[in-house]
């Protein structure tokens, strides 16, 4: 066990966990931030996507010991009031079915918009093809990314 000081959503958190604990489980079990989801544990579904210094990262395979001083952003910290252009667009288009994959989808999309504010369909597909949605909401996800890009 070791104590890690983590910079998450602009706040400082301490966690006393084993060094190989994936960030996902530190967030979920130890810090009560459950927006990032477990779907596969092997970086194959995208449900656990968070930002590490602004880059979309799969937190299920990221040991907490590797985080260091890097800035972690989770869905809970994407915006202060849940009104990030992507969150608003997701609501307006009414993307979710079961909703379980959606925080991962939004975090991948947010990283995309940061480096490419006006992505075309191909670029959206590329950035999001690592995020599975078992309910098949892909059409609306694409529409919502475009809507958010248009509005911001």
């Amino acid at each position, binding site marked *: 066990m070791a104590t890690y000081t983590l910079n998450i959503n602009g706040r400082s958190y301490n966690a006393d*966990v084993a060094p190989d604990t994936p960030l996902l489980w530190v967030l979920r079990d130890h810090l009560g931030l*459950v927006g990032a*989801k*477990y779907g596969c544990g092997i970086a194959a579904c995208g449900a656990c996507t968070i930002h590490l210094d602004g880059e979309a990262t799969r937190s299920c395979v990221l040991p907490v010991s590797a985080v260091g001083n890097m800035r972690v952003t989770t869905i809970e910290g994407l915006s202060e009031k*849940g009104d990030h252009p992507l969150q608003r667009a997701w609501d307006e288009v009414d993307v*979710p079915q079961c909703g379980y994959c959606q925080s991962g989808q939004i975090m991948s999309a947010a990283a995309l918009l940061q480096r490419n504010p006006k992505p075309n369909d191909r670029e959206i597909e590329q950035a999001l093809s690592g995020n599975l949605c*078992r309910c098949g909401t892909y059409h609306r996800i694409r529409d919502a990314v475009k809507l958010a890009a248009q509005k911001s």
Partner: protein
Amino acid sequence: MQSSSSYSRRDFLKSSALVGGGLFLGFDLFASGKFNAGVASAALEGSFDFNAYLSINSDGTATIFSPNPEVGQGIKTSFPMTVAEELDFDWTKVKVVQAPLDTVKFERQVAGGSYSTPHSWLRLRQAGATARRMLIETAAKRWGVDAGTCTTDKGLVLHPSGKQATYGELAADAALLTPPKDVPLKDRKDFKIIGTFVKGVDNQDILTGKPIFGMDFYREGMLFAMIQHPPAFGLKLKSVDGSAAKAMPGIVDVVSFKNNVAVVGKSTWEVMKAREALHVEYEKEAELESSADHDRIFKELMTSGEAQVKRKDGDTAAAFATANKIVEAEYQCPFLSHAPMEPMNFFADVRPDKVELIGPVQTPQSARDQVAKLLDIPAEKISLEMMRIGGGFGRRLRPDYAVETAELSSIIKAPVKVMWTREDDMTGGIYRPAARYRFRAALDKAGNITAYELRGVGINAGNPVRENNFPAGAIPNVLIESVDHKSPITTGPWRAPITNFLAGAEQSFLDEVAEAAGKDPVTMRLDLFRQAKAPLNAEGKPTYDTERFIKTIELAAEKSGWFKKRKKGVSLGFSVYYSHLSYVAQVAEVVKRRGKFTLQKVYCAVDCGIVVNLSGALNQVIGSVVDGLGHAMYGQLTFKDGETQQKNFNTYRLIRMNEIPEVEVHFVDNGIDPTGLGEPALPPLSGAVANAFYKAMGKRLRDQPFVREGDNTMENVL
């Protein structure tokens, strides 16, 4: 105007029996008294219960309780919309609360069979309409006017004199009235909420990462556990050495029960790691089947197996003997995992005097009753709260994971949350059964189908055929047989059980028949339906409605331009199916560009009667197309010595965003009472796709998944 009284309690009974999912127990729409402690205890001070579904609050809002599990089908939005419609309330002032399991107040708290909407449509409306009437009567009495002269709008009772009162002001008195009977329901043309695009009531929580799923549930002091099940079907537990695992940091206990070994600890990761230190031995208790065995079993049973005759009309043998042409083909599908994005999980706190169960389940009552039986605790002492479900697709109709959680809690005498890993989920059974079908059709000189035979062989499929569905009733001589192989591999309902493959196979086969008969596939189907007489079910009602079929087919043909001249390189494939009370016709469009073929678009015509929530309906239809396509193209679970060869999404391929076609949806507007949409748009899809690819590439796609290793049929498909 429609009166709600025509829908009697006996009808409820009959229809629940029909579907088999919902047990009928005491139900009282107007039962009084407070809800069990739990989710619904959120009801506020100054809140007045009108019935099981509805409280009106003095602050001008209404709380609508949604009794059925929300699994992504949108019921938590569409049910309250239906109540609010008849209440004539302002949708923005509705708070929706998930009701816990309550078999006194609600009936059929199940998410399955696409049956919630048809089951509850009238009673939800009645709940809203009755409350509205009570509010009007209260206002009329206060004002000393005739109730018949009062109207309502968005939560206000209005009188021509200019008097008005909010429902909130009237609620305390109105809730005391005896609920009137036979309150007339709104005319469809007066609907203000039903049929509109309404966003999911949980959107904000979903989009900001609130703890609403079972997986997110946490309670101070609870333990975390994982349960190791036998790694292969046909193995049972022999011995466990949990000492190394128990010595690992954060581990509280290692216990085994039945074939399960549970590792219990203080955090998910510690439990995951300790699991790797388990030493467990298994021994063989049944055949360890491999996919090669299944292939052999299919072959044997297709020819020599003892078949059950499920339907026999006329004399197919005689018709085949005199046939001008015979068309014959075999179709096959593999096992599939349900693979909902949220793996199985549940929370249980079993104490001597009460049991608390919390988590995602499509059949809460069955979960509770199984726990009651297993632990020998009266059902009244068990509470069950439903969390939002991260996908089910039928997997969570079986509450095995909830029951084992309760069993574990009773053994360790502590509150515990059990979580399955993706590998646990994919290797843990209850799959869509594998099946193989042989279709045969006899044609006369004019190309009419004189006989139709279907033999279905399933592996733990129960009955792999649907003998009362079309084309039974449309062809004079029909023989439908089924054979089932009992296997240690567990199976269960998977979105649109059996028809999820059978429908597409049948619709592909009909395409083969149309070709052999030299007929247009849509014209051939229309001709069949025009002369069909649907078989009757046990209650003497036709099993399908030929008129609705025809209208749905015509709508799909019109919207897709089926009978128009096609652009060069464009090929269309058609399919239509009726399941779960709704009719869906689909046209798939494959486009050839520079030697490559792409599934460009899918047109859907849907008859589910009245559309309750346009957004939810579109989501279900489009989602079913994506789901049906993904599994037809890529989905398969194969076995080696009783063990699945796919254990996670790196080898079990799900469809991705770059693989979806455009989807266009049209609803038949006929004003018929609504039917469900969780399943019906999936079954026909693979048929439309296979038929379009055949047109384009000249290759029949009969085996799923269409994209397979070592098979180059789809090599030119983009």
